């Protein structure tokens, strides 16, 4: 075997990989944009860090958070949260929701995860020539209903039409602003050993519902998207946990795994995930099994992940469970010092493995 003196030891190889994971990305490694760049995993990070950030860099953008936080006055005065997101889901209508509802809830949730109370949204529609007016009307109606449910107003909008074949019916972009009135610092680099990780309910429902709704799999599974506004739930959580809440995220594209991998790296801590404690629907487990997918990477549109200090774990879990959207909330992980930057899954089987970001599978458009 290859055990000569120049060969690297296993430990050296693994250390080199860890070092490489922490290096800033300087170059997009492919000549064209591929679907991997939109999958929310490592390729998406490449595009953002190596292509967009160098040209657009400024202190508001730099943290690359779901919402930017803008100071409005001196210390103690409310701050503004500002975010934007585009929706290209296919199919446009799916069990549990549609693109309109998703476009409101997704952006509202990005604001809520910054600790903000969402105020207004903008809505930009890119409609394909030939799209049925009745369908557009349905989308508009569900956006209106979703906005009322989330307590926001759609304050401004824009419509463009592109030639037939140049769009998939309709794409929607929404931007949103909200006010952060609490004195909270929710940041991915605030995790400390001993902290607990909570999820507000079953994971993977949205992504699997969409994949099944595409009708390409011929699976007879009844599953609905979990799309929902997380405004009340996050407010209840912040009331219960106060400054003991380190960070809030909604695990959309890339799923719970990607969120935890980002947090572990940002705080240089280890996150130890307990497989047996993950809330999962039997339908999601079954469909993932058949398709060879891991529910940890499947998108959610109505769930939040909270990292909280150990002393507020019980109070925050109770706060989540007291809300209908958090009835299945659970403590799923613990923050530990070692190995820094890595998420480990303690499997129900009794083993352990690494949980990393996706390397860029060309997954279908799910949001």
């Amino acid at each position, binding site marked *: 075997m290859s055990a000569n003196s120049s060969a690297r030891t296993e*430990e050296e190889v693994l250390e080199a990989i860890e070092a490489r994971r922490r290096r800033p990305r300087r170059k997009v490694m492919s000549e064209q944009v591929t679907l991997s760049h939109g999958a929310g995993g490592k390729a998406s990070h490449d595009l953002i860090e190596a292509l967009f950030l160098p040209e657009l860099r400024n202190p508001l953008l730099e943290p690359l958070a779901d919402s930017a936080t803008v100071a409005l006055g001196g210390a103690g005065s409310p701050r503004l949260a500002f975010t934007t997101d585009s929706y290209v889901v296919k199919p446009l209508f799916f069990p549990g929701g549609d693109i309109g509802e998703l476009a409101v809830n997704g952006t509202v949730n990005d604001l809520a995860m910054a600790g903000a109370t969402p105020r207004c949204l903008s809505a930009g529609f890119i409609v394909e020539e030939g799209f049925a007016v009745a369908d557009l009307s349905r989308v508009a109606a569900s956006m209106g209903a979703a906005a009322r449910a989330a307590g926001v107003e759609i304050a401004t909008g824009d419509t463009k039409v592109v030639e037939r074949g140049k769009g998939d019916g309709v794409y929607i972009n929404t931007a949103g602003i909200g006010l952060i009135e609490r004195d909270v610092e929710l940041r991915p680099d605030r995790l400390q050993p001993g902290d607990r990780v909570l999820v507000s309910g079953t994971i993977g429902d949205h992504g699997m519902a969409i994949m099944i709704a595409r009708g390409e799999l011929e699976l007879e599974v009844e599953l609905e998207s979990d799309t929902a506004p997380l405004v009340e739930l996050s407010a209840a959580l912040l009331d219960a946990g106060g400054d003991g809440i380190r960070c809030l995220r909604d695990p959309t594209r890339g799923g719970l795994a990607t969120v935890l991998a980002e947090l572990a790296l940002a705080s240089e801590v280890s996150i130890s995930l307990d497989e047996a404690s993950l809330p999962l629907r039997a339908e999601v487990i079954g469909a993932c099994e058949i398709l060879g997918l891991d529910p940890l990477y499947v998108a959610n549109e109505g769930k939040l992940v909270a990292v909280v200090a150990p002393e507020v774990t019980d109070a925050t879990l109770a706060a989540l469970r007291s809300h209908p959207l958090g009835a299945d909330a659970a403590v799923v992980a613990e923050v530990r010092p070692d190995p820094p930057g890595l998420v480990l899954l303690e499997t129900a089987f009794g083993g352990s493995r690494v949980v990393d970001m996706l390397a860029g599978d060309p997954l279908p458009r799910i949001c």
Partner: protein
Amino acid sequence: MSDTAGIGMRHVDEFRSGEAAAHLAERIAELVEPGRHYKLMEVCGGHTHAIYKHGVEDLLPESVELVHGPGCPVCVIPMGRQDDAIAIAERPQVIFTTFGDMMRVPATRGLLLDAKARGADVRMVYSPLDALRVARENPDREVVFFAIGFETTTPSTALTLLRARAEGIENFFVFCNHVTIIPAIKAILDSPDLRLDGFIGPGHVSTVIGVRPYNFIAHEHGKPVVVSGFEPLDVLQGAYMILRQLREGRSEVENQYARVVREEGNAQAMRAIAETMELRTTFEWRGLGFISQSALKLRPEFAAFDAELRYDLPGIRVADPKACQCGEVLKGVIKPWECKVFGTACTPERPIGTCMVSSEGACAAYYNYGRFSRRRDRKQATTTPA
């Protein structure tokens, strides 16, 4: 079935029971002889994936080493065939249908995913029947299915061909790259640089070919074979049954996966394969080179569906990149991390070798799941005083 360490199994959850696993791990620890090192090869990529995904190695004694074998369908496709696939996909009249993993396999001119970005109509499907449906829905286009895999996936390609013929579909073509597992195992047994103690036999393949084709491994080479299922407890039990054979000085073919695998396999599936396909004289395997009678092509009766006859393919044999050691990894001669480019030039984001692409590939499984191991950690803790 013979003694299975006293564990009855029925539903998926039971196959992941930590309690049952701990019990089995104790029984395994009792079987291991002090001072002896065991190398067991899991032939199939599905096993490799399960082992890493569930952390099965954490439950094995340090003296039991699992060596990852060649049974990963994506891993064994040589670069030249991937170039051929891209050449077909880039024809304007073609809709090229493929399993998702194949879109990220590196070829001379990039990936299928890049060809798609350049304008090729490449679509991901989950089965050849999906590809046939695309053909039905697009009668003015030529729909090609990129058929890969061992005996596990070959029957569905065969049945799809039979259905296409029965329905008289004329715009459906198969680019056939199906391979067979036995010649690959033979190549590994003949490889001088590997000493193996036993084989965890492929479960899915065996549902088709049965368990008898493995007899030569037990009888001529004297190595135990246990055909095993894909749940982590199946794999652990497979290891247990091999170690028990070694302890008792036996070398037999045993069937741990009897709830699915029948001794004689699936005659209907074998008939469908025989009706539509025949052995190639030889076929190139990535990293393993040419292996005679190791792959299938369409029979002359199905020439009208054969993409290799329909299109003028480059068909150029491309040498693997010099730095790539996929061959050694596929044969189990080196561990993934021992490859010179592992984790540096070759990563899941930008793979050089196929073993880094598929979730069943040993390198991808190790990189994605196995970078931290409790067993390794324990070992370090005991050898290096804090």
